[in-house]
């Protein structure tokens, strides 16, 4: 049981750390996305139209 709780705590810790890191890296970015896969050109982000 304690190991399962440990796994849950670890998963939460990793998730929080990753989101903090993402905020840190992308906060001042002018380009909206960071794409890690492939060599094809990155298309425009399909943002919903502003109301």
């Amino acid at each position, binding site marked *: 049981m304690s190991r399962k709780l440990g796994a849950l705590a*670890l998963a939460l810790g*990793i998730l929080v750390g*990753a989101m903090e890191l993402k905020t840190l890296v992308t906060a001042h970015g002018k*380009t909206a996305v960071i*794409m890690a896969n*492939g*060599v*094809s050109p990155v*298309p425009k982000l*399909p943002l919903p139209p502003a109301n």
Partner: protein
Amino acid sequence: MGAGVCFVTCSVLRASFLKYFFLNLYVILSLFADLTRQVVLRYRGVDSLEYGHTYYYTDCLLTVALFVAVISLASRVFAELHLARYVRLVAVLLLLGTAGFSYAVVAQSTDRLATMFAVELSQNLYFVGLVLTYLLWGAVLKLQETRTRLVQMVLSLGLYFSAYAGSYALVNLAPKYEVVQYLAPILGCFLPISWAVSVMRHSEDARLTPARLVAVPR
């Protein structure tokens, strides 16, 4: 693309395809994704909605595959401690947590919700993979892992993730230099090449020699 074919060929030749199945699966999927993107790009153009959807959905699929590849390496590292089951539990929790968080971020945009969700999930999972890889680096050091292939593959992943984050920072810091725009495609080749070199140069039984202890005279 050639680098991916090289890695899969090396894995098959060295009878390591099934041992590193998820790494091979990621590379094969990235080959198919590249082919699909090129076909859509050729017939529809870079500004088309179809190319955008193809790109972001395949990217999401590839990021999930890369995440599974990282987890498979973590399972191998922790297998000797009989913790592989808990590694899988953490992986499922992380995937569900990241998906839930991503949905919460994009839930308000009812237009193109699926595409925005794919983009958000892909990005969030990329950073989760980055943190996981660093933790795996720490575990490899702490457990004094000596399996050469495994160590080199984990190191390659860490370098790949770090280099991508670095290239993203460079693109933002120096957008006027065209050279930085080619960094990402170059880095895309790095991972399969380094894995291929690792598979070709070392056998599964190869071990790293631990650093010798220094005798301190008293």
